[in-house]
């Protein structure tokens, strides 16, 4: 910790006193450097570096098995990377080195929230409870680590605030009416959005979404786009996104990182990535166009502007 702590202090002072938020020389919110993850002999991620900016949506795309979810798991502490540095800039504080932090601290202290590829709600708890649990650490302090809360001193007000926060997010995803229903009674698309709302209740600076559009129909997919754009614009946080649905990726991403076989093969804005021969090769292989997966062909022809609805 000591060697790194030295320059982190300096970094911290740059971020300090940042009332002027739009400073041009801002450091990126998240810097991933030389990230490598090996499982035994298998190299899942091989020396990947990229950045994700504040108030930008950064998408990580790539064919199946490219190592996208592994990147997320390293970022959010579920795996310890074999090599690499994951730096998160924090306003007014020293940057956080995510690769050294325990999983739950990445959420509670570095304020990186995530969702999961196969939804992980608390199925037998209500929507409201799901969102209140997400505010656990704040409420723990308010309840005097249970001691004070047992007798109810001053805890009620804090809980009310937590409920208001939950109501705000339920309004954003249009599920206020169902606040008292169990989470597993929701349809699939709503569960996806509830998971995002729950992540937002932790008040993150970086939101990591693992295939949020998977399994959504075109209308739900469009709702999702709107929600993510809203979060970026109104809550001014960084979003990191793994997605296969190109209509989502091309439409809302500000920046795209392409992985293939654990390596980064392209990195840039959507226009650049779309033209990048390396990307085309990764998706198409060297074959003829007939063999293209649907998703890619449609993406190539739809030139990214079309909504999610216009599938052939």
């Amino acid at each position, binding site marked *: 910790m000591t060697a790194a702590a030295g320059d982190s202090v300096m970094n911290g002072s740059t971020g300090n006193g940042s009332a002027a938020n739009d400073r041009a020389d801002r450091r990126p919110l998240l810097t991933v450097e030389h990230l490598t993850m090996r*499982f*035994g002999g298998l190299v899942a991620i091989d020396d990947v570096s990229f950045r994700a900016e504040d108030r930008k949506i950064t998408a990580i795309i790539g064919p199946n098995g490219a190592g996208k*979810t592994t990147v997320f*798991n390293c970022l959010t502490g*579920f795996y310890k990377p074999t090599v690499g540095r994951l730096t998160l800039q924090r306003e007014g504080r020293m940057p956080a080195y995510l690769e050294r932090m325990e999983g739950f601290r990445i959420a509670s202290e570095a304020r990186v929230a995530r969702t*999961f*590829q196969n939804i992980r709600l608390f199925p037998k708890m209500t929507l409201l409870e799901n969102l209140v649990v997400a505010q656990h650490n704040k409420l723990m302090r308010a309840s005097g680590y249970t001691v004070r809360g047992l007798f109810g001193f001053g805890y009620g007000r804090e809980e009310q605030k937590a409920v208001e926060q939950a109501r705000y997010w339920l309004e954003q995803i249009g599920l206020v009416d169902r606040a008292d229903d169990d989470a597993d009674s929701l349809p699939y698309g709503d569960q996806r959005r509830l998971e995002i709302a729950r992540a937002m209740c932790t008040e993150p600076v970086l939101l990591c979404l693992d295939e949020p559009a998977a399994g959504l129909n075109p209308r739900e997919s469009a709702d999702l786009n709107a929600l993510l754009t809203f979060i970026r614009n109104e809550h001014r946080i960084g979003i990191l996104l793994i997605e296969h649905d190109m209509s989502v990726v091309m439409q809302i991403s500000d920046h795209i990182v392409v992985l293939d076989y654990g390596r980064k093969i392209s990195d840039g804005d959507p226009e650049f990535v779309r033209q990048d021969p390396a990307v085309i090769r990764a998706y198409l292989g060297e074959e003829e166009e007939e063999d293209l997966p649907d998703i890619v062909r449609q993406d190539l022809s739809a030139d990214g502007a079309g909504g999610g609805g216009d599938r052939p």
Partner: protein
Amino acid sequence: MYHVAYFLDQLINGVTLGAIYGLVAIGYTMVYGIIGMINFAHGEIFMIASFVSLIVFLLLGLAGGVWLPLAILIVLLAAMLFTAVYGWTLERVAYRRLRASPRLAALITAIGMSIFLQNYVQLLQGARNKPLPPQITGGVEVVNTTNQAGQAYAVSLSYLQMLIIVLTIVLMVVFTVLITRTALGRAQRACEQDRSMAALLGINVDRTIALTFVMGASLAAVAGLIFMLRYGATDFFVGFLTGLKAFTAAVLGGIGSLPGAMLGGLLIGLIEVFFAGYFNLEYKDVATFTVLVLVLIFRPTGLLGKPDIEKV
């Protein structure tokens, strides 16, 4: 010389005890491998086997002198048959409907079955310890020396112990062939990997699982017979501790691994005997449980188990 002899004596005892644990452990490991549950009642199956062996021995005794090897064979087959029916019924009545339930529900059911079977036997046969006079006597003297007090101290490998070791090795070979070479073994391994896929490919999953229980129970039956011959007494409670230690053996060897179960059994038998012989007889069970706790904390996959990467 005395020390060597003492060591040798412990070694022989440890190996025979380990054979019992190993045979019971295989039942735990196979069931865990195929349906992912701890069959807590497996120790009770072992206990029932010891009772069945005792009853058949007594019957043969009443029928008049049967040539000893033949008698042993008859008891072995009868014990395997009747115990296997208990194993099969256990799966059919209690576990089949719980395959899709959470692990804890299945475990609680297994605990319930264990308590039920213990008390079933206690009610039927009484709580008193049931002795069986030694059936196989004699042996080969290995070392003859004197202990510190100057008394004669002979270490012998009894015919019974030889029989136990040979029987265990033969059974191990037979079962390894069964699992690796036959259609049943392939079906079992397929069910281990993916039950619904196996069913789609035409494997009768129910029957495969039932047969797994039958196999586990027959091996426990052999262990029960060995136990009866070696220790000469049983009661309704012997299954509890033996089961727990055999489970420890399965975990130590790596749950799901057949050679692991045998190796674990051997190690637990040796640990127990050597701890009792060299340190403290009273705390030998504590030693075994300490091994269990340490293995689970530091190497939950056991010695020969496959690593189990947390899927997020």
